[in-house]
């Protein structure tokens, strides 16, 4: 098992204790609050991923062969889900990120937030994270 899948399994495990929706969301919100923010002056147009409902900023670079991501959103639930995505993909090799299927999102019942109709910027963010990684492969 590669480390991305391992991290996904760990998240699925963590979420398995919540059978109430509100508890699950309480946890996501806490994760959102913990996520390191992008400084306001760093929230520039080029990092902005526009969603109709909420906005997302993403910044990516490669250091020591691994991808480093930071991200932020004006909506806290979106931010909590970003925190999970970053936890799974951060410090991973670009080639692993590019092929990651991110099945955990569905497994923990959050796929609705990654539906294109939700227009919260998350779908585009995942795409962008993979694009950033792909650019580093070759």
């Amino acid at each position, binding site marked *: 098992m590669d480390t991305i899948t391992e991290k996904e399994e760990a998240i699925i495990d963590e979420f398995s204790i919540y059978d109430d*929706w*509100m508890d699950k*969301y*309480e946890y996501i*919100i806490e994760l959102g*609050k913990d996520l390191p923010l992008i400084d306001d002056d760093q929230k520039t147009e080029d990092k902005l991923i526009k969603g*109709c*409902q*909420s*906005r997302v900023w993403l910044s990516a670079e490669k250091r020591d062969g691994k991808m480093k991501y930071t991200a932020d959103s*004006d*909506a*806290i*639930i*979106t931010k909590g889900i970003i925190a999970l995505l970053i936890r799974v993909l951060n410090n991973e090799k670009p080639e692993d990120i590019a092929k990651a299927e991110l099945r955990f999102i569905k497994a923990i019942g959050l796929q609705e*937030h990654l539906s294109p109709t939700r227009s*919260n910027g998350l779908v585009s963010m995942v795409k962008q994270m993979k694009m950033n990684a792909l650019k580093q492969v070759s």
Partner: protein
Amino acid sequence: MNINEIRAQFPTLHREVNGKPLVYFDNGATSQKPQSVIDRITQYYTDENANIHRGVHTLSQEATSNYESARKTIQDYIGASSEVEIIFTKGTTDSINLVAHSFGELMQAGDEVVISAMEHHSNIVPWQMLCEKKDCKLKILPMNEQGELLLDELDQLLTDRTKLVAVTHISNSLGTINDVDEIIRKAHNVGAKVLIDGAQSVQHLDVDVGKLDCDFYAFSGHKLFGPTGVGILYGKRELLEQMPPYQGGGDMIKEVTLEKTTYNTLPHKFEAGTPNIAGGIGLGAAFEFLSKLDMSALVEHEQDLLDYATEQLEKIDGLKIYGTAKTKTSVVSFLIEGTHPYDVGTLLDKLGIAVRTGHHCTQPVMQFYNIPGTIRASFAFYNTREEIDRMIAALDRIIPMLKD
């Protein structure tokens, strides 16, 4: 007036969402449908389906007569003087585009259209497109902080070049009921025609297009308990007669040769192709449903819901209501300090409460208040004070979760 008896006729209101009984407060987007409308559509497809206006066989005759009798029901309900003034369209958007196209053909370069600062995108974009194409000028009637149109300013905006004033009867994002009587009077004084966007109105007010004396009135079936994909354009007969057709095709012609076509009479001139027959008949059923209700009692009930919701929401710390006009319908748009509408909407949904979040297709209104969007609860007469209590309780639970 027993609200529970009315509620009982709306099956969707009785389902659960996320394990909780549904509280449906997104009536501004679309309303739920009574069983009589659902049954009427089912009956059409089960027993009566045929194309209309083109067959001698019995089924086609019956379908035609049912469709045309829906038109008559709608004419009577909204007070039009003839059924030829009732054009079936796909909805408000389609009705407005029809006018922008066909009435627009009568406009010259340099002519002017006036719209207001609180229009839905459907009553902005078609006029921008027309003005671009025809080299006409689009003018905007402004509003104040409360979300009320500044009618005094209309006098300065109206000129002898003003051909059309297009304003909404009720704002979908703020709930303001505009003084359309006054707008129509002022516009007619300079010889301009008036289109009223009634998408939010027929379900909340007693609309009589004859008394209003508007030139066009546009609305959607799905917001007034009818099916999606069907709506109405009311237009004054003499004006519709002058306008060229919108789309070409079957049904709208009198005679076609390969060189030239003569057009059918009203209303068919504006109804090219096979229409939404089931939709038209279903919309007729929605108006029959409405005409059996005591509308004035229901309007009072909706006002009570608005007052009660406003009073309860204002008790919440940091909550601000957008749209505080003196005359309002049952729509409350709000924001809560330190929270994002997307988060509030998502968590309300988890508690079974359906509200709308975002810009409600009125981005200029959001730009006016310099906000990204709002949370909007919009009530219909089948909603209750108990449901508002559930929303307030849900907000009391959600807000501490979201704030630091």
